[in-house]
């Protein structure tokens, strides 16, 4: 049985992978996992691993670090299973942990950074943690496709804008992002707007 077929087989045998019409909620899956049903965790992980990984990857810009942080995030979820109660959306909790791990990572790397401001003027809030060793967009984008240019331009965004943009693109709504980043929804909206403005300008010939 090849890997793909095995994946399909495992999927078919997981009681929590039901039809689209009766999707089990993330919160319910987490509750079932906390009750000892590992299959529920597998589904939960399959649902969210890629978005969270992309969020971490775009923020850290290094696959190895993103790998480590992803493990940290999910191990934190695993460890917290006993006390889990669905007081908020699972996605919000998940990204809150992911963000905490990211901040922890930045602290280890560069010392303390500012992350909880809610001011409208803090668009450069996380700039201190932006990786300045990256090549400039022009170094990368010459002759390359728009998708790759978008990646580079996302990396060049101020960290707070990048964070809000990435979470938004990965499916979180304004309120959820606000809760995760401990800021106001209006601030999140502004950050996303600023990010899109910059991306529109930089990628004008792709749009």
């Amino acid at each position: 049985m090849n890997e793909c077929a095995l994946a399909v087989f495992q999927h078919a045998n997981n009681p929590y992978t039901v039809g689209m019409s009766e999707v089990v909620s993330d919160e319910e899956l987490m509750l079932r996992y906390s009750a000892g049903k590992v299959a529920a965790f597998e589904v939960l992980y399959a649902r969210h691993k890629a978005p969270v990984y992309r969020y971490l990857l775009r923020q850290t810009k290094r696959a190895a670090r993103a790998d480590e942080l992803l493990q940290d995030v999910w191990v934190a979820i695993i460890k917290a299973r006993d006390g889990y109660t669905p007081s908020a959306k699972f996605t919000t909790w998940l990204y809150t942990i992911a963000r905490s791990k990211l901040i922890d990572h930045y602290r280890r790397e560069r010392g303390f950074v500012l992350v909880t401001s809610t001011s409208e003027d803090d668009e450069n809030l996380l700039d201190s943690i932006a990786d300045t060793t990256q090549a400039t967009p022009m170094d990368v984008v010459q002759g390359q496709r728009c998708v790759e240019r978008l990646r580079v331009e996302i990396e060049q965004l101020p960290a707070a804008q990048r964070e809000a943009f990435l979470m938004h693109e990965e499916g979180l709504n304004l309120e959820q992002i606000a809760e995760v980043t401990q800021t106001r929804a209006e601030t999140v909206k502004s950050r996303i707007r600023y990010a899109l403005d910059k991306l529109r300008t930089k990628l004008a010939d792709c749009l």
Partner: protein
Amino acid sequence: MTAQNEEHDIRISALYQRSASEDPPAHVDAAILAAAHAAVGRDQARSPPETKPLRKRSTVPWALAASIVLVTAVVFVMRPAERSALVSMEPAAVPQTLRPAETTLALNDPSPAVADKQKAAPLTDGAATESNKSDAGAKIARDVEPGRVVAQAQNTVRGSKEMEATDLPRSKSEKTAELDSRPTTAPSQAPASAAAATPVPAIALLEKNVGLADAAREEARVRAEEKSKRKDAIEALPPEKVQPEFTADSVVQPKLAAKQKMDAGVGSGAIGNASPKKISGGYQRDGWPGEGVPHFLAPTNALLLYPEPDQALAPVKVATPPNSEVLFDTSIVRTLRSVFLTAKDRVSDVFCSGAKSAKPVIQPGEVIEYLQYGAEGYGLVRYRTEICTVFLMDRTPRFDGIDQKPEVEWWVRVVDENKQVRGWLLVESAAGSNQQIKHLARTF
């Protein structure tokens, strides 16, 4: 937003989705899933089934059902044996039918069949009859051999109507007289002498045993509930300890195995009973910035609280009454990153608490560690290993590096009206004030 911008935004989003093809590597998937499996396996190995809330509720009915099944099975196993005994033995050897109201333990029945049971079981006191080698008796003995529990179970069910079918037509008084004259030596009961003096009705015994078992189960259930409540009340986080059997950590992720700190938590219970850990190489003091007792208001119905004063941990959303004052019992100010200052001139307004030098003088060129800003121009510094207050601000800078500020966090430990700790609230950090709360006027 113009329609063109909106269209562009959609295209940007589409571009992003095209670029979003990365998945975590397979080995990371494997490690995480292994960790999930290992954690659950560890739980199941560590916890008895009744500690799980879902199982806890169904323990007693299941135990009763299991008992009934066991007893019924014993009845069906024993009946053929007793029937064969009836065929080969005298009527007096037939086990007594014991109605609920008059049921008596018959383990020391002097009749051959019962005597054989006693020998095999071995429950007799040596007064068994000599005719205990019959085939029927041996068969019964084999049936009873598994142990006293079976013998006792047999007795406990003799009051059933099924057993009445094998009863012989003897008078009630005969049976009662015969039975009452026999000593009872069931090992699981009271001492033989006492049992002989006052035969124990089997149904009563059954009820007593079931009652004891129920009581024990009930006690265990209450204990487990109390334990669970205590656990909730203390914290919603997993215990902080080494878990060598956590194979995913120790084998696949050696990095994780080295971790000893709590990672995250969420739950309905209170969190944050832990005392703040000292920052390695940092500084922390009890109290708060500025003068007067601070007061805060929680405008919304929830606060994000941390299990410890550490933003690296995942916060927990804790419900609070809207527009209520945030109560706290502890306040700390932590320095996460200090700033080193070099004195430009001689600085004499230095006040230290240590015994080494209560009022030292900082010489030009000397370096002090700026830890926290105090109030009205004074700052808290570390000077020659002592913590001192120094007048930092002046019309002209007295120290090089004073344009930088230490990075500090102000935390309070939130309690409810019953003074139960709910968690740690970050009041201020270098990023500014926490917007979850409003600062009220201080009291002096």
